[in-house]
């Protein structure tokens, strides 16, 4: 493609070019910042810091935990996604909600809850006399992270299950395959993009997690990185460690790209797509309920119950209503616009990657994930430098915070949109264009309705993450801005759990409400052919 043609394309497709430029630019700023800081390092000290046994151990621990959590989340998410989409199990919608709610629980609350339940003096021991070792280390971190991140995989898989065209399965069955073999040989391979995008988020979340691993005392890269910032007030060597973390992320992204290459899952034949018949589980439904109840009990009821117990434990001094209201407003006024903005940025990025696959567009899509993997503290420092240098009037404004959330969490929004786009047939859009629609018009009238479900999931992800976010909020929020998460963390950190409880419960309640509303909207937007399933 010549330079002039590229320019023409950019001018014609400004509605793709501008958001993509914003997304890529926004994510590259922190990278440039980290490189600048890292170059200030004294090579000898850097060498001593990086090349030692501990670095290798950190690498081993980090990779081990990531793989473990990927397995753990798959075991939780796949059956739950299947139960809520492919069976006639009554109460599926409630189960779906329960499968999303763990995202409303801050990781460190989950860790505290697990630690308070186990051990000689834990709740289990005191109520049932059941003494299990107090959770910590690999097992503790693995459990807390699996329980709090499986919804990423669950929602991706669920979107994929809902979009599957069942005619393939029916053909396979007609050709004599049993149900189980159809599932393994026909259904599972079609779930690969969803597995990859959900798994990618889970993996990146584990790589960047600080709250859980620090409480569970399990040494990973991001823990070491935090210590570097906190212990020696050192931005320079911390930048080097952050870059090492990004290299690890890069490796994971490459792996994912290889696994994703050449996949095409939209329908190609003529005629309407068919949605799958739902299995009637019969007596097996009790097994389904038991599984769902177990998952929900551990991932939602346990942390909610623990926080409720903190609340009861605090004195009857009354709830700080004014402060709760102010914090709630601050949280929502930053998280909701960030969710919309992130989804709008993710749509063209994912669209390019799916519809115009080339090395160039694949790189663009992967760059979005780098923003997610950049340690938030480094991300925030970079935006301080950038905004003070380029747009000083925006420094410490709500607008900057919203932008920071959107850029940081955009990766969470790309996956669901991408999965939805894979299943939206491009020839529909082409047909609309041949009937005289402009490219934008064709997209809006044909493809957009098909990816709406993906967009809603994207917004849910980003909203829930932004509600819990800490480091970006600490450093970039307008001064005096106090979100629910800042209050929860601040009180919990000082062991004032009674005071932390109302803020934590509000996060969970508002998040649940938001997800509930989104799921209702999803019901309204499900396409007519599938309305009977709702």
């Amino acid at each position: 493609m010549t330079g002039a043609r590229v320019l023409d394309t950019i001018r014609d497709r400004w509605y793709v070019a501008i958001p993509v430029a914003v997304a890529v630019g926004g994510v590259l700023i922190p990278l440039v910042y980290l490189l600048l800081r890292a170059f200030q390092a004294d090579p000898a000290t850097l060498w001593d810091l990086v090349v030692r046994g501990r670095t290798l151990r950190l690498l081993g621990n980090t990779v081990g935990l990531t793989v473990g959590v990927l397995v753990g989340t798959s075991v939780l998410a796949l059956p739950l996604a299947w139960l809520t989409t492919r069976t006639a199990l009554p109460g599926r919608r409630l189960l779906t909600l329960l499968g999303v709610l763990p995202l409303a629980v801050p990781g460190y609350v989950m860790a505290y809850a697990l630690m308070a339940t186990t051990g000689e003096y834990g709740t289990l021991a005191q109520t049932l006399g059941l003494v299990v070792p107090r959770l910590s280390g690999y097992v503790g971190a693995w459990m807390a992270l699996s329980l709090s991140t499986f919804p990423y995989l669950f929602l991706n898989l669920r979107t994929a299950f809902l979009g599957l065209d069942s005619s393939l399965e029916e053909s396979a069955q007609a050709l004599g395959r049993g149900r189980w073999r159809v599932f393994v040989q026909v259904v599972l391979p079609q779930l690969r993009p969803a597995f990859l995008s959900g798994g990618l988020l889970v993996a990146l979340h584990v790589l960047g997690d600080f709250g859980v691993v620090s409480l569970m005392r399990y040494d990973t890269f991001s823990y070491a990185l935090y210590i570097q910032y906190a212990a020696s007030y050192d931005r320079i060597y911390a930048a080097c460690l952050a870059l090492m973390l990004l290299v690890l992320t890069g490796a994971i992204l490459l792996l994912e790209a290889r696994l994703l290459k050449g996949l095409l899952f939209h329908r190609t034949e003529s005629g309407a797509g068919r949605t799958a018949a739902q299995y009637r589980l019969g007596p097996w439904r009790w097994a389904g309920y038991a599984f769902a109840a177990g998952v929900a009990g551990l991932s939602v009821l346990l942390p909610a119950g623990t926080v409720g117990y903190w609340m009861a434990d605090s004195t009857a001094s009354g709830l700080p209503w004014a402060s709760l209201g102010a914090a709630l407003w601050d949280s929502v006024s930053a998280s909701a616009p960030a969710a919309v903005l992130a989804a709008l940025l993710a749509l063209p990025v994912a669209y390019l990657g799916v519809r115009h696959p080339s090395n160039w567009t694949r790189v663009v899509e992967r760059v979005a994930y780098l923003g997610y993997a950049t340690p938030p503290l480094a991300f925030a420092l970079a935006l301080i430098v950038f905004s003070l240098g380029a747009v000083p009037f925006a420094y410490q404004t709500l607008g900057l915070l919203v932008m920071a959330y959107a850029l940081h969490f955009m990766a969470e929004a790309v996956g669901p949109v991408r999965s939805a786009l894979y299943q939206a047939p491009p020839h529909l859009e082409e047909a609309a264009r041949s009937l005289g629609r402009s490219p934008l018009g064709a997209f809006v009238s044909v493809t957009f309705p098909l990816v709406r479900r993906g967009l809603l999931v994207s917004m849910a992800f980003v909203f829930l993450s932004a509600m819990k976010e800490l480091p970006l909020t600490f450093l970039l929020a307008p001064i005096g801005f106090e979100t629910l998460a800042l209050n929860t963390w601040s009180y919990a950190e000082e062991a004032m759990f009674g005071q932390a409880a109302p803020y934590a419960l509000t996060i969970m309640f508002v998040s649940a409400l938001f997800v509930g509303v989104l799921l209702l909207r999803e019901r309204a937007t499900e396409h007519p052919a599938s309305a009977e399933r709702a």
Partner: protein
Amino acid sequence: MTRLFSLSLIATLVLSLLGCGGEQQDELVIYSGRSKALVDPLLEQYEGEVNVEVRYGSDAELLAALQEEGDQSPADVFWANTTGALGNAVNNDLLTELPDELMEQSARFAPTNQRWLPVTTRFRVLAYNSDTVRPEDLPDSVLDLPEHEEFEGRIGWTPAYSSFQDFVTALRVTEGEETARTWLTDMQALNPNSYSSNTPMIQALDAGEIDVGLTNHYYVLRLRYGDAKVDDEGSIDPEASVATHPFQEEDIGNLALVTGAGVLQTSDQSEAAREFLRFLMSDEAQSFAAETLNEYPLRPGAEVPEYMMPVDEALALSPDFDFERLQEMDPTLDLLRDVGAL
């Protein structure tokens, strides 16, 4: 529909940019490493009189932010948990010199460069589970702790936490590098549990995961007495089975750790900033520190609640130590890395 959506979004963004843009001229901006949970009630009292805005964060986060902001920083006051952070701010030339009249209010731990004002102090202690450990079995000196092999796998410490690192710096400076290294290596041989901060460690102590832990005195008091401490002080029923064991007088294990505040070079409100520092030394703020935070006030003659060790006694336990040397963090970090604790 989409157009309406995008328009309203853009409108929101623009409005939020305009609405919150810029700092008002007359407001005092405090960067507080002291957590909101602790100091918010105190600041609310002060806000009645002055227009104050606070950015909370950890000492390290705020220091990094201050340095990246450079001379465009909106901050007037840096209020920190640790002398290390304040010393680092001095080294990076972020703080202004304070007048004698202000420094005299807190003479005991005052730095000779007069760039920051000591406000309160806390003490290092050995905390123990009072159900499983008898205080008479605990050592007189922190240096003897590694000899207690009965605590193998049952000791907690916080190598990544600033107050522990300050203790190691003091140990290194007073007893020498080799003693410090031997102590750390011997402690490592007891396979201690490393916690990221004191709160989870005290919880673990109360939960029976460990028997003893090296921590700061107020974490124990807060967990032990909880909200009961505001009631009749004579008849407090401990809420948790944790207690503190002070080492013998002048033992390095009883090190005092000072919190403080300074006025930033970038401040356009330096008089208001100094006024805030005066407020921190007022009766009101100093008794708040003692009664609510269980820290030791540095204003001469200030009282502490009955369940705390009296001020003079606590100060006598702490060794004589040049607190400015707590800035010498790098050798401490190297040492901790060498022995594998970090």
